[in-house]
C-alpha cells in the first residue's frame, strides 16, 4: 500500500500528464465542451424524475428531483470511474508492451477525469441546494471522507477489474450490464427507508448503498450519516482497495505478455 503512494509520488508528472490528456481527449472538438461533464447525471436525473416521481414514497422533507440528482451525481462518478478504470490497461496496451512504469498510474489516470466531472456536478448541486435554502451545515465536513471511501471502492474494483479484463476481455463487456443492475439494486433512485424488512440486511452488504445514503444524509437531511451506513462501506472499501491493489501488483509482471 505504501508502494502505491511511493509510485504515485515518483511518477506524479506522468499521472498529471495522462490525466490532462484524458480530460482533453474527452471533450476536445465537441461543441458543448465542459458542459458534458455535468450532462450525464443531470439528464439521467431529468429522465428519472419524469418517469418515476409518481412512485416517490420517501422523505417528505426533500423533493424527488433534488433527491435523484444528488444520488445521480454520486452514482455517475462510480459508474464512469469504474468503467474507465477497468478498461484502462487494455486501452493502453501499446504502452504496457513497450515501456516500463508502474501500471497503476494508468488506472489512476483513467479514474481521475470522472472525478473532475464529479466536482463540476457537485458545484452545480451545491448551487441548487443553496438556492433551495439549504445552507452549509457542519455535517458537510463528512463529505471529503465519504468521497475518500467512494474512491477507495472505485480504485479497488478498478485495480482488480482491469487486471481481470486483460485476461478476460469479456469483463469490460459485462460491466455496463452489471452497473445497470447495481444502479437499480442500490438505493439510488429510491430511499433506503423504503426497502422492505427482509432485504435490509442484504442492502447493507452493498457498500455503494451506504455511500449514497450517507451522501444524501449529509447534504439533504443535514445530519451526520448513520453509523452502520458509513462504517460498513468504509471497512469494505478499504479491504477492496488493499486486496485489489495486491492482486494488481501480483499480475503486473504478466501484463505485457498477455496483452
Amino acid at each position, binding site marked *: 500500500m505504501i508502494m502505491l503512494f511511493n509510485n504515485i509520488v515518483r511518477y506524479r508528472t*506522468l499521472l498529471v500528464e495522462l490525466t490532462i490528456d484524458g480530460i482533453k481527449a474527452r471533450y*476536445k472538438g465537441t461543441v458543448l465542451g465542459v458542459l458534458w461533464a455535468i450532462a450525464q447525471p443531470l439528464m439521467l436525473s431529468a429522465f428519472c424524475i419524469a418517469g418515476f416521481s409518481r412512485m416517490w414514497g420517501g422523505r417528505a422533507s426533500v423533493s424527488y428531483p433534488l433527491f435523484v440528482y444528488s444520488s445521480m451525481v454520486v452514482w455517475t462518478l462510480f459508474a464512469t470511474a469504474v468503467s474507465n478504470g477497468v478498461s484502462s490497461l487494455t486501452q493502453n496496451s501499446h504502452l504496457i508492451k513497450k515501456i516500463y512504469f508502474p501500471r497503476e498510474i494508468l488506472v489512476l489516470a483513467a479514474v481521475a477525469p470522472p472525478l473532475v466531472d464529479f466536482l463540476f456536478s457537485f458545484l452545480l448541486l451545491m448551487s441548487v441546494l443553496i438556492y433551495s435554502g439549504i445552507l452549509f451545515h457542519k455535517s458537510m465536513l463528512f463529505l471529503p471522507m465519504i468521497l475518500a471511501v467512494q474512491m477507495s471502492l472505485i480504485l479497488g474494483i478498478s485495480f482488480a477489474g482491469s487486471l481481470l479484463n486483460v485476461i478476460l476481455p469479456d469483463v469490460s463487456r459485462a460491466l455496463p450490464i452489471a452497473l445497470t443492475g447495481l444502479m437499480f439494486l442500490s438505493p439510488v433512485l429510491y430511499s433506503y427507508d423504503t426497502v422492505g424488512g427482509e432485504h435490509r440486511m442484504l442492502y447493507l452488504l452493498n457498500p455503494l448503498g451506504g455511500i449514497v445514503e450517507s451522501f444524501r444524509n449529509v447534504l439533504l437531511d443535514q445530519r451526520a450519516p448513520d453509523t452502520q451506513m458509513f462504517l460498513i462501506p468504509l471497512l469494505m472499501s478499504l479491504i477492496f482497495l488493499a486486496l485489489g491493489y495486491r492482486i494488481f501488483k501480483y499480475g503486473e509482471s504478466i501484463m505485457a505478455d498477455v496483452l
Partner: protein
Amino acid sequence: MDTVVSFDHVYKRYRRRMKGLSRICGFLMGLPSKDDFWAIRDVSFDVHRGDSFGIIGGNGAGKSTLLKILAGVTKQNKGGVRVSGRIGPLLELGAGLNPKLTGRENIYLYGAIHGMSRGEIRKKFQEIVAFSGLEPFLDTPLKHYSTGMFLRLGFSVAVHTDPDILLVDEVLAVGDGAFQVKCLKKIDKFHASGGTIILVSHSPHLVRHYTNRCLWMEEGEMKGTGPSQDLVADYLRAIGEHNGEGKSEGAIDLEEEPGKETVVSLIRVRCLDEQGCPAGSFTPRSSMAVEIAYRARRPQAGVLVGLAILREGIYVFGSKTHIEIAPEDIGEERSIILRFPRHPFLNGHYSITVGMCRDEKWYNPYCYHKDVLSFGVEPTKEYMRFDGWVLTEHSWEKEET
C-alpha cells in the same frame, strides 16, 4: 569491477494458449503445459559498469525477450535478474507519443513516461529541442510529423533522461543521415563519460566494432559470453557452416502470430533470379526480384509497402510503394514484386526487411519483419576489381585540354 546488470540462470516462457478460460487456469495455477514456448533458457551473463555490451543472434534467438526483461516490461519465470541503475531504453522510440498532442506536449509526456519529473523536463527542455532540431514544429500536432521527425523527437527525449544504462537497438540505423550521426556521437559521448551501453544487433561486424564484451544467443539459448573479438569470431564461424540453409535459400514463409491478427499480414517473401526461381545467391548486376506475398482481412486504401535492404546493420537501399486492397482481395493471397533489372549490390551478405503500414505511419505498422530474408552476392571475375558495397553506372574520362 562494478556489475550493473546480472542475469543468473534466467528462463522466460510464453504460453501459446492465451485466450479465455484456459488462460485464467494457467495464470492461477502456473502449470506447465505443452503449449509453452521457452523464449529464453538458462541464460547467465554480467555487464560491468562502463562496458559496451553487445547481444548478437539471429531472429528468434531471444534478443527482444532479453530486452523486454531488461526494460522491465516483462518478468522472467525462473532465475535472478539484478539491475542497478536507471535504464534508458532507446528502443521502440515513439511508443507513448500521442499524435493528437503537439511536439511540446509530447516532450513532457514522453519524459514523464520515462520517469522524469516536470522540473527535470523543464530544465532539459531547451537541450532536447536543440538536439532534435524540431524547434519550428514544437507547436504542431504530432500527426503532422514525418516518420523521421517522430524518431528524432523520441530519441532526443529518451537520450536526455539521464540514464545509467542505455539499451540500444540497431534499428537506430533507420532515420536520416545527419541525425543518425548525431545519435551515434551522443551515444559515444555517453559511453566515454562512463555510461554503460547494451547494444542489440544482428550484425556481427557492428558488434565487434562497437562493443568490448558480448553475449551470443541462438534460439533461446546462450552460446557464449565474453570479449567481443572472440565471440564474434565464433559466431562467424558458425554462420559460415550454416550458409545455404534456411533463410538463405531465397524464400521464407511467414506465420501469423496467434491472437495478433492485423488488417494485412505478410505470408511469404522470396528472392527470385532471372528465371523467376528462388535463390539465395546472385552474381553482381544480374536480374533480381523480391516477391512479397500478403493476405488482407479488410479492404484498405493507401497501404504503404516498404522494403529495405541492409548490410551489417547499414541501410543500403530501400523503396516504398502504395497498394490498394479491394474487396475482391480479401482472404486471397496477393503479391507485389520489387524488380531490379540489374541490381547494384556487390560481393557480400545482405538482409531484407519488409513492412506494411498505413500512410507512412510506421510507428503502428500492419506488419513489420526485420531481416526476414537474406541473400548473398558472389563475385565473378569481371566484377572482382570493384570494392565497396554498391556498383552504379560510371565511366572514367580523360579531360581534353
